[in-house]
Every structure is written in C-alpha cells, then in structure tokens.
C-alpha cells in the first residue's frame, strides 16, 4: 500500500515539474496559442474560400475537428524532444535514480505532455465556439475526452522516439517521418471517401484516422465508423504506445 502511494507521489512529482516548466517557458505557451489560430484562420479560411461547402458545412468548420486533432498531434509528438534535452543536460538523472519505478516516471512525463497538449486542445475548443462550430456542452466534453485519448497515445509515441534517440536533430528527422504521413493520411483535411483507393487503404492503417473520424463524428455528426469503434481503436493504440514507452524508459 505504501509502495503504491510512493509510486503515485512519484508520478505527481514528475507531472508537477512538467506543468510548472510549461507555464514558465513562455515560448511553449505562446506557440500553443498561435499555431492553431494560424491553421484555423489562415488555412481554413484561405482554402475555404476556394472549396465548396462539404456536407453542409463551410470548409473552415469542416476541417475544424481535423485542425484540433492536428494541433494536439503536433504538440504531443514534439513533446518527446524534451526528454532528449533533459537527458543531455542530466536533469533526468535525479529522477532516474529515485526509488520510483520507470513506469511511474513514464506516466508522469506522459501526463505532463498530455497536459501541455490539452491546454492547446482546450484553447481550440474555445475558439470553436466563436466560428459557428456546433458545440453543445455534451459535445465539448466528448470532444475533450477524445482529444485527451489521442494526446495520450501521441505523447507516448513521442516519448518512445525521444527515449531511443540521443540528439534533438535526430528526433526532428524521425518525427517528420512519423508526423506528416500520419497527418496527411488521416482525413483531417479532406473527406476520406473522395480519395483514390490506395490512399484510402493507407488511411485505414493510420490510427489517427480513427481519432479524426471520431472527432468529426462527435462535433459535426459526420463519421465513417461508429464512434465507439473509433474510440476503441484509439484506446488500444494508446495502450500499445504506453507499453512500448515504459519498456523504452526501462532501458534508459
């Protein structure tokens, strides 16, 4: 029992450190406000003026769920780079030598990253209220939970990559090969149904597709798969990513 409490306190300690750093590093805060604004207004409104209405929604509103997923995806994956800096500067050693399991250290870092990403998620949901996205309180809660699930999975992937690499440059390289294909083949920017069939197949093996589909289903009522099916796949994927993450932390 006291073992359990000390593990929970360990998770809390690691998370608290991440949360404090997030608030204090102004660059992180500012970029998490600016980048989604750019996507929604510059990209959504810009492309939207040349694209017809999709399924009864303006393009800006149609891609809103995808943009929300994207913002969370990018922030979550990139969070993994901090683990490399922590290791390079030896800040992590203090945590690694503590009598706390690596699973707890991983959980603390993962929750820290998810907090980081969800600050952006919440900000995006608030913007949604101002651009005529149909958001009821129930929809907001469901959308929040779905984004959280996506973020947990993607932070875990980022941490796996970070834990296995030694240089921030290497991380940047690998993450680009993970992030962009995941994003483009997820249906975030265009409906999956219109794609050539080989591309459509690519989207089905991409876990993010189900995250985008669920978000669009929750917010706009447009979904390919049942939402519980989307959520279940995302959940299994998150479990898998966390498992690999814990193994990677054990080897660190």
């Amino acid at each position, binding site marked *: 029992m006291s073992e359990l409490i*000390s593990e929970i*306190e*360990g998770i*809390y*300690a*690691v998370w*608290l*450190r991440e949360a*404090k*750093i997030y608030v*204090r*590093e102004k660059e992180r805060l500012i970029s998490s406000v600016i980048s989604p604004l750019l996507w929604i207004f510059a990209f959504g409104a810009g492309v939207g003026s040349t694209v017809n209405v999709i399924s009864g929604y303006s393009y800006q509103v149609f891609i809103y769920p995808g943009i929300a997923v994207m913002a969370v995806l990018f922030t979550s994956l990139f969070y993994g780079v901090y683990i490399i800096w922590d290791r390079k*500067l*030896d*800040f*992590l*050693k*203090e*945590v*690694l*030598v*503590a*009598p*706390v399991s690596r699973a707890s250290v991983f959980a603390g870092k993962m929750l820290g990253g998810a907090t980081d990403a969800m600050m952006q998620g919440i900000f995006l949901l608030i913007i949604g209220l101002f651009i005529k996205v149909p958001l009821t309180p129930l929809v907001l809660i469901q959308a929040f939970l779905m984004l959280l699930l996506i973020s947990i999975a993607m932070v875990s992937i980022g941490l796996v990559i970070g834990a296995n690499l030694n240089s921030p440059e290497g991380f940047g390289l690998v993450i680009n090969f993970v992030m962009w294909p995941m994003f483009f083949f997820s249906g975030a920017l265009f409906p999956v149904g219109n794609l050539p069939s080989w591309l459509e197949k690519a989207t089905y093996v991409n876990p993010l597709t189900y995250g985008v589909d669920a978000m669009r289903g929750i917010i706009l009522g447009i979904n390919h798969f049942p939402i519980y099916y989307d959520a279940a796949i995302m959940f299994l994927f998150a479990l898998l990513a966390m498992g690999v993450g814990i193994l990677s932390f054990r080897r660190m």
Partner: protein
Amino acid sequence: MVIKTEGLTKKYGKITAVEGLNLEVEEGEIFGLLGPNGAGKTTLISMLCTILKPTSGRAWVNGFDIVRESGKVRKSIGIVFQAPSVDDLLTGRENLAMHNLLFGVPRGIRKQRIDEVLSIVNLEKRADDLVNTYSGGMRRRLELARGIMHHPKILFLDEPTLGLDPQTREHIWEYIVNLAEKECMTVMLTTHYMEEAEQLCDRVAIIDYGKIVALDYPQTLKNKVAGDVVKIKQKARDIETIKKLDYVKSVQEKDGLLYLSIKNASSHLQDLLAHTGPIDFVEVRSGTLNDVFLHYTGREIREGEGEGGFWERVMKR
C-alpha cells in the same frame, strides 16, 4: 561493510572503464576516489547508484546487491552527480519538494526537512528564487542539500567541487565533513583535486585506467611513497653519493634540478647538505598525493584539467 565490490567491471565496447575492482568501505567513512579524467570514477559511482549495469562482477551497497536489489539500494543512497542536475526553471525550494516526493519522505516532515537542509547550506534567503539566478556554488550547495534531505545512509558525491572557486570549495568541504559527522553518513566522493582528497577523506583509493593502484589513509600513502621532497639546484652534483644515503628513497633529475624523496627531511637535512657539497638553492616541502600518484602511475594528475562539462552545462540553460 557499507559498500563492497567484487571484480566489478564495466566495458564500453573496447574501452574498459572500470576493471575488476575490489573495494570495501566501512560505515561512517569518508572515502575518496582520486584519479585523473577518464580514470573511471564516474562509471564506478554510476554502477553503485544502479543507473549503470556492470558488465561483470558484483557489488553491494548497504548490504543490497546493486543489480538484483536496485530498488533497496536506491532507498539507501543520496547522490550529487558530476554534472548539475537541479532544475533551472524551478526554485530551490521546488527542487527540494520534488525530491521529497520522489524519495518518499513522509508527508508530515517534508517542510521541516526542507528548512533543515536549506539552513545547513545557507540558502534560506534564496530558496524561493529560480535556480537559473543562482551562481555555480549555490547550485552545488542546493544539490548537496537535496542529496542529504532524505537522510540517506550513504552519500555519493561525484566531483562535488568541480569548477568552483577555491573559497566555495572549502565551504563545501566544511559542509560535507559536518554532515557526515552529524548524520553519521558514509560518504564516497570522487575528485581529481589533491587537496580535496587529502583534507576531506579518511581513506583514499588512487584509481587510474579503471584500476585501483593504491588504497590507504592519505598520510600512510604519503609516508610509504613520498615522505618529504627536497629540491636542490647545484652546479657540480654527485648523484651516486646521494643515492647511497639510507634516508634517501629516490632521486629524480628534471630540468637541471634534483628532486629527492626523503623519509623525514627536517631531521636529515643537515646531514644531506653535508654530503651534497655547495648548492645554489634548496627547497623542502612535504610530499603530496600528487607525488604518490606520480610514483604509481609515472604521470601527474593535472589540476584544473576539469571535464569542462560543468560550466558549459550551466551556461547552456
């Protein structure tokens, strides 16, 4: 025996950083590992702290096997790493609070412990400032405070005063000695500063290329090998005569000067000078661990040849 190693070895590919090390450290000792850069000191400490797995051999810390019972080892130790590992964007107090949580200090005494160690290292006034406003010496003191806060049985210090000015260094020595006494802690520290090993440590192991080349009380080491050193400058010298004197342990010639190693210079100097004949210049000093190191390895430990990492890392943030 609080720390014991048996044939402890660590290889990095072809490099053998620590080679078949046998070591025993007793309770309450301040034990020094003295050696130049790359000798394997950090590698040894990392293994004892369970953050590095040995290639072969075994070791026990506080009676627990470092591989099989690493959790119990971790609960018994405190450590100050060679490179600074306090968080810059947290305050001193926040760093300590995080440590309390990570090391399972009971809730009721956390605040008291923080205040206690802050006062030991004289950081009360700056405790609520961000660490990135601290000087190098203050950071080191904070790390020291953090290392002892959970009252470890054994404290590991990896180059605790690397890169610090002499004054701060002496302050930190004082803290370490006081702490070891007050808390009845065993301390194992690494250093490549001679005076640090001499002044601070009960026993010293001289380590070179991953092996222990000598291990004893600093005074015994010096007596065994170095005694006193007499430096003589003279035009016509007769080395053979000097070598035959029974109190002269060794004679070396370097840069036109003679370096004699002598058992007890103060009582033999008169006699020595009678044998050498007229001289231009003589200087007598007590032997140092540097002479001991020189004797065993044929090289000198050059001081200030720090690993550079410290300030680089501090500056980066």
